[in-house]
Each structure stands twice: as structure tokens, then as C-alpha cells.
């Protein structure tokens, strides 16, 4: 649902208004991913494989992030013919479990490399069958450059709290193939406004623009 204002009185007023909208529109409102959207098809939620992955992997009591996951699954599928691997710099292990369940074909036949903050994740992990998926508990720039594929088809920035995130990503930008997709998690999140501006400037320097999506994600096509 919508992020509520910090002031308790305003939060109560906002919650009351949101409840009126929910009651008025019933199933015609998507109430998740940090926004309300009215009168949308959201057909991805009824896609059998997507729905099965939701049921199997996601906690029904956790905040609804299905729209954000739709964007990730779309990006995985859309970059299947772009040369190179998929790299996540930061991220949520539950999202990875979801992607493995929902898009196994899009993950197969190309290297998947995940770099996580040591504090978020315990030890390196390698799974090469059936998917070449390796997780590293480091955001050290040199180590990331050593372990990341030379060609990258899809890059996900998902470590907004890590100081080294942008410098690591900038080093990886040179490996992005034309047509590769860059997804920036929390790009539009107001608590990371400085990061948003830093990304906009870093991308502008390379002639790339990012679209802000209501899920808070940013999307850019590499050229």
C-alpha cells in the first residue's frame, strides 16, 4: 500500500482515504508495490507460471511486490537474446527465489552472478546445475569485476544503502551490451533521493536515461 505520512494524524487521514478508495473500487484497484493503481489489467498476476511462483515462494503476509517482480521477469525474458550474463548488485534472496521459480528458461544458458553485502548474506554460494548461478558475499569493486561476466545483458542495482554501489556499477557499465537492460531498484524511493540524482547524472554522462516506474524501479536501455 501507499507509504503513510510520518505524522500520526495525517497517517490516519490518509489511511481512511485509502480505505474509502479500496471499498469504492474493490478489485479494480491494485494496492501494492507502494502505489494504488485503478482499473488495470495486471494480467501478469494471472499468468499461470507467475501465479504459481507467487504461491510457492512469496509470503502472503509480506508487502505485495508483484508488479516489481513483473518488471524483473519481463527484463529477464526480454534480454534472452542479448549476449552476456545477468548481474545483481545487491538484492533480496526472496526475489531471487521467485525469479528462479518464475523464469527458469530466462536464467538458463547464461551466467547469473549475484553480489550481496556481507552483512546481508553469509557465505559465497555456487549452484551450477541446472543454472549457472553464483552468489558472492562482497560488494568489493575489484572482486565484483573479477567475478562478473565480461558481457552483461541485464544489470540490477539493488544495494541502495551500500556506499560502493554506484562505483561498482559504473565499473560494470562498460560491460553492458547494446540492448542490455539496467534495472535500478528503489530508484524512485524518496528516502534515496540523493542516490536517484547520482544515478541520473552518472547515466546522463553516458547518454542513457532512466524511466521512473511507480514501483520505485528505474529502467534504462543500454546503447
Amino acid at each position, binding site marked *: 500500500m501507499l507509504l503513510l505520512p510520518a505524522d500520526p494524524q495525517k497517517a490516519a487521514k490518509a489511511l481512511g482515504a485509502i480505505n474509502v478508495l479500496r471499498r469504492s473500487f474493490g478489485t479494480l484497484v491494485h494496492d501494492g508495490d507502494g502505489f494504488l493503481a485503478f482499473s488495470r489489467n495486471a494480467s501478469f498476476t494471472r499468468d499461470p507460471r507467475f501465479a504459481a511462483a507467487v504461491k510457492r515462494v512469496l509470503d502472503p503476509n509480506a508487502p505485495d511486490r508483484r508488479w516489481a517482480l513483473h518488471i524483473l521477469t519481463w527484463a529477464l525474458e526480454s534480454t534472452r537474446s542479448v549476449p552476456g550474463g545477468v548481474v545483481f548488485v545487491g538484492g533480496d534472496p526472496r526475489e531471487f527465489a521467485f525469479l528462479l521459480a518464475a523464469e527458469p528458461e530466462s536464467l538458463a544458458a547464461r551466467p547469473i552472478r549475484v553480489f550481496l553485502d556481507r552483512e546481508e548474506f553469509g557465505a559465497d554460494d555456487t549452484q551450477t546445475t541446472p543454472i549457472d548461478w553464483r552468489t558472492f558475499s562482497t560488494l568489493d569493486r575489484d572482486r565484483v569485476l573479477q567475478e562478473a561476466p565480461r558481457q552483461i545483458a541485464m544489470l540490477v542495482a539493488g544495494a541502495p544503502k551500500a556506499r560502493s554501489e554506484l562505483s561498482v556499477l559504473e565499473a560494470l557499465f562498460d560491460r553492458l551490451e*547494446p540492448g542490455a537492460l539496467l534495472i535500478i531498484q528503489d530508484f524512485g524511493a524518496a528516502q534515496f533521493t540523493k542516490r536517484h540524482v547520482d544515478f541520473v547524472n552518472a547515466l546522463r554522462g553516458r547518454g542513457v536515461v532512466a524511466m*521512473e516506474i511507480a514501483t*520505485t524501479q528505474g529502467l534504462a*536501455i543500454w546503447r
Partner: protein
Amino acid sequence: MSATDGLDPDWDSENVRAALADLVDAYGRAIFLGDHLAVAGQVVGFGHDRAFVEAFKGSSPDTNENSWPWRLHTLVWAAKSVLSVPGDFVECGVFRGFMSLVVCKCLNFECVGRQFWLFDTFEGLAKGQSSDIEREALNPSYERSMAEGYTVDSVRAKFAAYPNVRVVKGVVPDIFATQCPRRIAYLHVDMNALTAEISALEALFDKVTPGGVIVLDDYGRLPFSEMHQAERAWFRARGYAVLELPSGQGLVVKR
């Protein structure tokens, strides 16, 4: 299903108007309301982009069109993203030219070495390319517009500052027999009619250059769910997935 099926929320009910007013009161400037979206706690960077805001605000006197900034953000992003991709820009379904005018302003399109083709009948949906229900939903807007003096010439006048914009009057796809770009980098489809939109895709998809972007304006809007299903299947048959954006648009990047 069509735009007349009543699946759009009843924004005019007293309850809803009061709730929206309460949201504005509770969040102040920290909430985005538009494009059938309510978004809080987000940067909404395009709202701080002076060039975008100026282009958007000055381009339509229509309150409905003025509630679509997120959709315009998508289009401006798509247009900027294909500047290094060979091909022209195309819009099928222009109406008064609002959306493409914002794109032109944001890109200083007169300096972009491409043609921007704007195709429309400027008189509403044609019979052969739409259902009775679709025409009943859309054509009154055209009739009101024409009564207010909007014509193909007044739309052309809007783009007078852009010599590389071609406003073309005709029925899609028939008009492509005589006027059509060879290659396309940016394709915006917004005809609110299933047959017309699929016909446009049939005629133009192969002309879209790899790396080019296709935006389907009403792809995610529930009143157009039949069109959504048809377009989803059309792209799926060609090996493409359509990204359904919260703004209601659909997005495809050509490979």
C-alpha cells in the same frame, strides 16, 4: 469489453472526490495523483524536470490530458532512449496532438534528424477498423473536438515549429500504402480500437529497428482488456513479452 463497460473508476462520486481530497490534505506535495495512480514517498523526478514540466503544462487546455504526466514521462523516456537507434518516430492515434507535442518539446525535435509521422483520421475511428462499441466510446470526443474547431489543420499548426513533423490524415493501415516511414525507432500506438491497433502492428512492426521502442497507450487499462489480450497474444506469437506499466501503458523493446 470496451471503454463503455463502466470499468473505469467512478472518479466523480462524492466519496471518491472526498477521499482524494483527504489524500492531498494528508500528504501535501508528497503524493502523486494522476494517470489513475496514487503514488507517495517517491521522487517523481520528472515533476522536478523543468523542461518536462514546461512542455507538459503548456501543451493542452484539457483537464483530462493534463492528468497524464506519468504516461508522458514514459513517452519522453522512450523517445530519448531511441535517439541512437536508426529510424523515424511514429504515432498512430494523434487526436489533438498533445502527447507528441510534449515529446517534440522535450527533445527539441526540430533539431533531431528524424521525421515524426502523426497518423489519424482526425474525425474519429473508421468503421472498418473498429467496433460499434469502440466508436461509441471514442468518436464523441472527436465530434466535440471538431465542434470546438480542432481539425487536421489546427493540429498541423501546433507543430508548425517542427518542420520534420508530418501530420498525416488517413485511416490506419490503409494510409501506409502511400505514406509510411521505411524504418521506425519509436512507435506509439493509441487508437483505442482493437482491429486498428493490431492492423498498425501488422503493418509497422517489421519496420521497427532493433533497439526501437513500442509503447501501447491503453495496454494496461481494464476497459481495454480485450485489446490487451489480443496484443499480448500478438506479441507472444512473435516471441515478445509486453511490459505492463503501472501507468497503464505497454512497452516492448524490439530485438
